[in-house]
C-alpha cells in the first residue's frame, strides 16, 4: 500500500480519459473534488490486490447516469461514500477497500472520492480495463460472478438496495429505472467482491497504468514532444489513422448514444477515409470500408496536437484527430470475453480480429 499524490490523480484524469475510448464521461469534476479534498489535508492510498486476504470485502463503485445531468448536479464524494456505507449496513460487514468499476473516464476517480471520506485504500485495478456501456461487460460478468446486491444513493438521501436480480440484464434494467427516478444521476456500489474474487477476476494494475499514460502525455507536452507517440510507445499501441472529422451522425436508441464519425485522412493517410461506429464508446473502425479495428481492442480518438482524448459526445466537424489502438486486457480476448464485449455484442456481424494479432 502506498500514498497517492495529487499530481498522480491529475495524471490519472488524463490517462483515464484516454482509456475511456470515447465514453466514461469527462473526469474533470471528479478531479476538482480531489483537489478540494487534498487541499483539506486528505491523502488517498493505492493498494495492490495481492495485499488483500481472500475473505476481505471490496466495494466496487461507479457513478451512474447521464453525463449531461452530471454537468449540473455536480458529483460529491459524500454521495459515493453513502452508497458504500449502505452496502456495509446491508451486508453487516465492513469493507477492506474500494475499487473502480471502470478505469475509463470519470469513474476512475470515484473510488478515490469515496476512499477519502471513508478512510479506505483504493485497489489498483477495475473490472473493464477501459469503459463499456453495459453492466454485463465486466471481467466479473465474464467470470460468471454474482451480480447482486447493489446499492444506489442520491444526494437527497434517497437510497435503493437491489437485493437480487435474475441476470446482469435484469440488474441493469432495475437499477437504471431507480437511477432515472432520482434524476438520472446516482452513486452506486455494485455487488461486493471478496479478496479472492478481486485477485482472480479483476483487471489488476489498471489504475497505475492510467496514471502512467497521463504522466507520459504531460511529460511529452512539457518537452514539446508528440504526446501521442509517447502513449503509443508506453503502451505498445498502434497508430491507425490521422485526419480531420468531416461527418458525424448521432442518435439515441435504447438509452445509448449511438452513431458514426467519418474522418478524412491527412499526412500519410491523405486520400483515405476512416469510419468509426460508437455506442457510448468506440466499437468498430473501418479503413476505406474494410474493418481495421474492433472492440475489445481499445479504440482511442485523440486531439492530434494536444493528445487529449475526445469523447463521443464532443466529437465535432473539423477536429484534427489521431485514432490509435491500445491492447485490451487478456480476459476480454478469451472466447467468453469476446462473447460479452466483442463486435457481435454490439451488433456487428464481424469475427473478432485484434490489430495486435
Amino acid at each position, binding site marked *: 500500500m502506498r500514498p497517492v499524490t495529487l499530481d498522480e490523480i491529475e495524471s490519472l484524469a488524463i490517462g483515464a480519459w484516454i482509456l475511456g475510448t470515447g465514453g466514461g464521461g469527462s473526469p474533470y*469534476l471528479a478531479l*476538482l*473534488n480531489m483537489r*478540494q479534498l487534498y487541499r483539506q489535508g486528505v491523502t488517498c492510498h493505492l493498494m495492490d490486490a495481492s495485499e488483500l486476504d481472500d475473505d476481505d470485502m471490496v466495494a466496487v463503485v461507479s457513478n451512474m*447516469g*447521464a*453525463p*449531461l*445531468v452530471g*454537468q*449540473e*448536479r*455536480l*458529483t*460529491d*464524494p*459524500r454521495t459515493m461514500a453513502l452508497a458504500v456505507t449502505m452496502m456495509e449496513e446491508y451486508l453487516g460487514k465492513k469493507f477492506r477497500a474500494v475499487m473502480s468499476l471502470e478505469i475509463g473516464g470519470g469513474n476512475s476517480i470515484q473510488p478515490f472520492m469515496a476512499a477519502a471520506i471513508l478512510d479506505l485504500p483504493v485497489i489498483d485495478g477495475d473490472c473493464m480495463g477501459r469503459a463499456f456501456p453495459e453492466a454485463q461487460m465486466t471481467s466479473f460478468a465474464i467470470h460468471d460472478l454474482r451480480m447482486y446486491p447493489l446499492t444506489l444513493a442520491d*444526494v*437527497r*438521501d434517497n437510497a435503493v438496495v437491489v437485493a437480487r436480480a435474475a441476470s446482469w440484464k435484469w440488474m441493469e434494467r432495475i437499477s*437504471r429505472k431507480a*437511477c*432515472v427516478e432520482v*434524476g*438520472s444521476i446516482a452513486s452506486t456500489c455494485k455487488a461486493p467482491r471478496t479478496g479472492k474474487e478481486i485477485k482472480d477476476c479483476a483487471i489488476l494494475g489498471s489504475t497505475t497504468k492510467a496514471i502512467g499514460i497521463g504522466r507520459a502525455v504531460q511529460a511529452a507536452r512539457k518537452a514539446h514532444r508528440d504526446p501521442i507517440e509517447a502513449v503509443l510507445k508506453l503502451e505498445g499501441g498502434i497508430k491507425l489513422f490521422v485526419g*480531420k472529422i*468531416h461527418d458525424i451522425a*448521432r*442518435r*439515441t436508441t435504447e*438509452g*445509448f*448514444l449511438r452513431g458514426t464519425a467519418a474522418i*478524412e485522412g*491527412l499526412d500519410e493517410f491523405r486520400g483515405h477515409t476512416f469510419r468509426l461506429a460508437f455506442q*457510448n464508446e468506440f466499437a468498430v473502425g473501418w479503413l476505406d470500408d474494410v474493418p481495421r479495428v474492433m472492440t475489445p481492442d481499445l479504440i482511442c480518438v485523440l486531439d492530434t496536437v494536444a493528445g487529449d482524448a475526445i469523447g463521443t*459526445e*464532443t466529437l*465535432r*466537424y*473539423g477536429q*484534427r484527430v489521431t485514432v490509435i489502438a491500445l491492447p485490451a486486457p487478456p480476459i476480454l480476448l478469451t472466447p467468453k470475453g469476446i462473447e460479452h464485449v466483442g463486435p457481435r455484442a454490439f451488433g456487428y456481424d464481424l469475427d473478432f480480429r485484434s490489430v495486435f494479432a
Partner: protein
Amino acid sequence: MRRRIGIDVGGTNTDAVLLEDDAVVAAVKTPTTEDVTTGISRALAGLVERAPAAREAQAAMIGTTHFTNAVVQRRDLDRVAAVRVGLPSGASLPPFVDWPEDLAALVRGEVVMLEGGHEFDGRPLVPFDAAGMRAAARRVRAAGIRSVAVAAVFSPLNAACEEQAASILHEECPDVAVTLSHRLGRIGLLERENAALLNACLVELARKTARAFTAALRASGIAAPLYLTQNDGTVTLAEVAEAYPVYSFASGPTNSMRGAAFLSKRADALVIDVGGTTTDIGSLRHGFPREANSVVEIGDVRTLFRMPDLLSMGLGGGTRVAMAPSLTIGPTSVGFRLTEQGLVFGGDVLTVTDVAVAAGLIDLGDRSRVAALPASLVDSTLARIRAMIEEGVDRMKTEAGDVPLIAVGGGSFLVPPRLAGVSEVLNVPHQAVANAVGAAIAQVSGEVDQIFQDLSRDEAIARARRAAEDKAVAAGADRATVSVVEVEDLPLSYLPGNSLRTRVRVVGEIAR
C-alpha cells in the same frame, strides 16, 4: 435611407465606418488610446469630417476588447457575491472552485449556497430556500457588495429559482446589480456560474464604459442609439448590453468575419484576418462565424458560451523575419511600432512587411531600403508564409474540396492569390476596416438550448425556434425579419423517453 456607424476598438487601431444602406461611404483608422474613449472620439470626429451625414445615422455599433482585457489584466474588477442554488447537490464544489487563486482573491466577496434548483425534466430538485436567500441578501447589503451572480441547478431549463432569488435581492438591496446565469450560458453549472461571476465583476466597468461611449457619441453630434456588438456577431442596445459585458468578449474577431461576409457578399467561406501581430482564420456559415463548441478559457477561468471558433497564428505585417542561423518567421512582432522599426520605414528590424515590399506585393515606405535583400530570401520567406496560411486554412476547413477564402485586415496583402485547397482568394474594397463594417451591419439574435422529451425531432426544433424568436424580439429585433441561422440537436443517452437536446439560434434586423 439606412445609415449606420460601425466602430471597432482593437489593440492597435480604432476603426470607424459609415454605411449608407449597403455602401461604405467613409472609413477612418486611428490609433487606440489607453482610455479607449479618446480614440473613439477621434475616430468619430474624422468620420463626421469626411461624411457629415454621419450625424444623421440611425444607429451606432461599437465592438471592443475592453472587458476581456480587464479580466486578463486583473484591473477594474468589482468584488462580488456568489449565490448558488442547488444544495444538497454540488456542496463539495462551491463557487470559484476552479478559478485561478489571484483572480478569486481579488473578486470573491460573499459565497452563499442554498437549497433549491431543478431536475433535467423541470421537476424541483428540492424546495427553494427563500428564507436563506433573504438572510444572504441582508449579508450582501451589510458587506457593501454591489454586484451578485446567481446560478441555480438546471436554470436554463427552469429559471424560477434564479428569478425568485433576484426579486428577493431587489427587495433587500435595491441598488445591487444581479447577474442570473440562465441569461448567459448553457447546460454546465460550473462554466455557466463562472460566466455569471465574470459578468458580475465587470458590470460596473461596463456601465461606466457604455456611458462614456454614449457621451463620446453625443459630443460628436450623433444622436443615434448606441449598440454594443456581441461575441456572435449580433448587437444589443448599450443600456441592455451593459448588464452583460461577457457577451462582448470576442466581438473583435467576430466583427471582422461578419464584415468579410458583407463586403464579399459570401455567406459560406473561410475568412483570414491578417493583422499586425496575428492572423485569425475562421469559418463563416450562413454569414455568421462557426462557434466553438467547447470550453473557452478567459483569463484562465473556464466558461462556456457563444464564442467564434478561431485559429490564431503568429503571423502579421509586423512579424519579425530572422535569417540566421536559419530562416525563421515570428512568432514575435514589432506590432504597432512597425512604422518606426520596419526597414522600409527607416528602422533596423526585418519584418514580413519589408519582404512584401521587396517582392512588390505592396508599396509602402522607402522601397530602396530593401533593394539589397537577396531574392532567395524573399522567395523562401514568401514560400514559408504561403505554407503557414495553407496549413491554417486546411485546419479550419470542415468539408472536402476547395473553398473560397476572404482576405481582410491591414496585412491582407500577405495572402497569395492562389492557394492549395482554396477555390478563390477574395480581396474586397475596405478590407482593412472589415471589423468596423462588421459592427455596422450587426443584427439582433435569440437563442434557446433546451432538452425536449417525447417530441419528434421536428416538433422539438419548432418549439425551440418559437422560443428563440421571442427572445430575439425581446432584445430589439423586428419579428418580420427574424430567421434561423443555426440548428443543432443531440440525442441524450441514459435519459428516459426520447430526449433531445436542441439548440436553435435566430437573428433579425433591428426594429425601427
